[in-house]
């Protein structure tokens, strides 16, 4: 994973709450078996509407999405994060993220920065009054800067550290493989195993 320290790019105001992952990427695009190339799928249904924010310059070149509360609800599809990243987004600001979406973002190096709704409203105004305004997202100081608005954001320390260092999760866990093996030795015999299959249907 690429390390993340700061990013500066055009802010995109998405004045909507409850942006679920079915909106971020409709299910029809989940049939692909690749991990990249999802930029066309991002907000696919909404992008058919010419007035949608990403169909307007300069927002179509945006890289910091500023959304309403409860962003990323619903399906666990990590494709939502891949689509945002493939389109060019580096960070999403919202006052509240769905748990699974936030986790997926952290694994993929997309910064999910939790900003107070009052500050989101101020940033929306700046972006709407001055389209093309850039937002600086600083993971070191945990602040976002947009025009004359400077706001703190929240992110858990562990995710922040992993993003700053660009660390691979599986590699980190496998450093503790002895602990896993020791745990496995203590599991009770009544816990089920999938193999051998105790059905004759195969």
């Amino acid at each position: 994973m690429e390390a993340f320290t700061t990013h500066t790019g055009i802010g995109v105001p998405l004045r909507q709450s409850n942006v679920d992952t079915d909106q971020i990427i409709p299910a029809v695009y989940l049939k692909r078996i690749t991990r990249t190339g999802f930029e066309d799928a991002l907000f696919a249904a909404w992008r058919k509407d010419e007035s949608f924010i990403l169909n307007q310059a300069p927002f179509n070149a945006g890289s910091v999405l500023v959304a309403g509360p409860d962003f990323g609800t619903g399906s666990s599809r990590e494709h939502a994060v891949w689509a945002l990243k493939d389109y060019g987004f580096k960070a999403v600001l919202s006052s509240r993220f769905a748990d699974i979406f936030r986790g997926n973002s952290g694994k993929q190096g997309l910064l999910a920065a939790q900003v107070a709704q009052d500050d989101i409203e101020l940033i929306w105004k700046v972006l709407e009054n001055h389209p093309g305004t850039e937002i600086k997202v600083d993971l070191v100081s945990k602040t976002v800067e947009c025009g004359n608005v400077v706001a703190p954001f929240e992110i858990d320390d562990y995710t922040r550290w992993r993003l700053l260092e660009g660390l691979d999760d599986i590699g980190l866990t496998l450093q503790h493989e002895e602990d896993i093996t020791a745990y496995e030795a203590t599991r009770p015999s009544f816990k089920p195993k999938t193999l051998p299959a105790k059905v004759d249907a195969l």
Partner: protein
Amino acid sequence: MGKTLAEKVWDAHVVRKGEGEGANAQPDLLFIDLHLVHEVTSPQAFEGLRLAGRPLRRVDLTIATEDHNTPTLDIDKPIADLTSRTQIETLRANCKEFGVRLHSLGDKEQGIVHVVGPQLGLTQPGMTVVCGDSHTSTHGAFGALAMGIGTSEVEHVMATQTLSLKPFKTMAINVEGTLRPGVTAKDIILAVIAKIGTGGGQGYVLEYRGSAIRALSMDARMTICNMSIEAGARAGMVAPDQTTYDYMQGRPHAPEGADWDAAVEYWNTLNTDADATFDVEVDLDADALEPFVTWGTNPGQGVSLSAKVPSPEDFGDENAKAAAERALQYMGLEAGTPMKDIRVDTVFLGSCTNSRIEDLRAAADIIRGREKDPNIRMLVVPGSARVRLEAEAEGLDKVFKDFGAEWRFAGCSMCLGMNPDQLEPGERCASTSNRNFEGRQGKGGRTHLVSPVVAAATAVRGTLSSPSDLESAATGTLTGIAV
């Protein structure tokens, strides 16, 4: 101080405690007892293992099934949609390469992953269960800590059989009282979501408690836990009890002999201690509950079926007001319209929320001897091939077919329309599934989430209806409705 059920299961799976305390603590490393896999969220994870040259650590704790993409007609023919077919074939190739047990289309154990796990007896109390699917919360009905994960986490579990997780907060959902006839588990969970909102459960594990929950069957408990994610909670749980054990006993992978006794002894410890405290408690009165139905485009936008479509002005919060306005426009509804006046085009009985045998029985009890509204298209999609066989053995397929419904093969089907089962733009559906998001069941489709008995009554009358709206002259009887 005592522990909650969720804390007990968590503590029993800590491989390595994260360093530090409180907000700055590192995540704990938790062991995963069961990893369920399906075709949509796994190909990139298998590919990741392959690229890194890593094996799948515990194939004996992993099981795969085909569900999201599978057609529900002509299952003996090659899948017509080439991208769907490729995804299914990729799963088959990956399972073969890594040695994962797979129940393919046509196999008697194939079906929706959250129906298959419990039915095989692989989901048991006190386990940690994960799957690359947010409705993994379903398995919490057994007192398991079960949650949906993203594809990076799927790969992590494949490689390490663990997950790095920060402890959740705990929320009790206390449901006391007795449900009235025609009111079901689905109505409980829709009312809970309307009450706490789609973000109300974020960061929490929910524990459903109280006399109304204890009275529920396992199928009904699964319906409730299934939709925990719709309240923002990654997991929801019910403490195991005799109902749980009766369901488990004799299933293919349930413990046997001395193992059964040891398991029950352990399972009996899996309840929240009397002196444990929850971070939040929410109460719901089961006696007062009516059939519940959604009017909008997120599962929190629901009302009693006897109510009217709300007005954006009813909402104090600006964001909720704007969301309501947008939802009414998308749904093609006018504020103030009685919900029961809303005419629907399609009724979908299925999905991991409501496709188990009791759901099918409850709907069949309503329609038996009645006639379908001629303008309604009704799809009945059993949750698994096993449920389909069981229903056919009871003659339920005949009840549905005589009524004029389509009797399909198992899969996720119209819940998310990854297969050909989709709504047309503007088509309105009463659906027993879990998400009424814009376009979820097909581009431009309009979804009302309902219980199986409301779905059945709606198919009879053509408008959103509860069983009590049906004339009593018909042979259908309200006794025996699964709640």
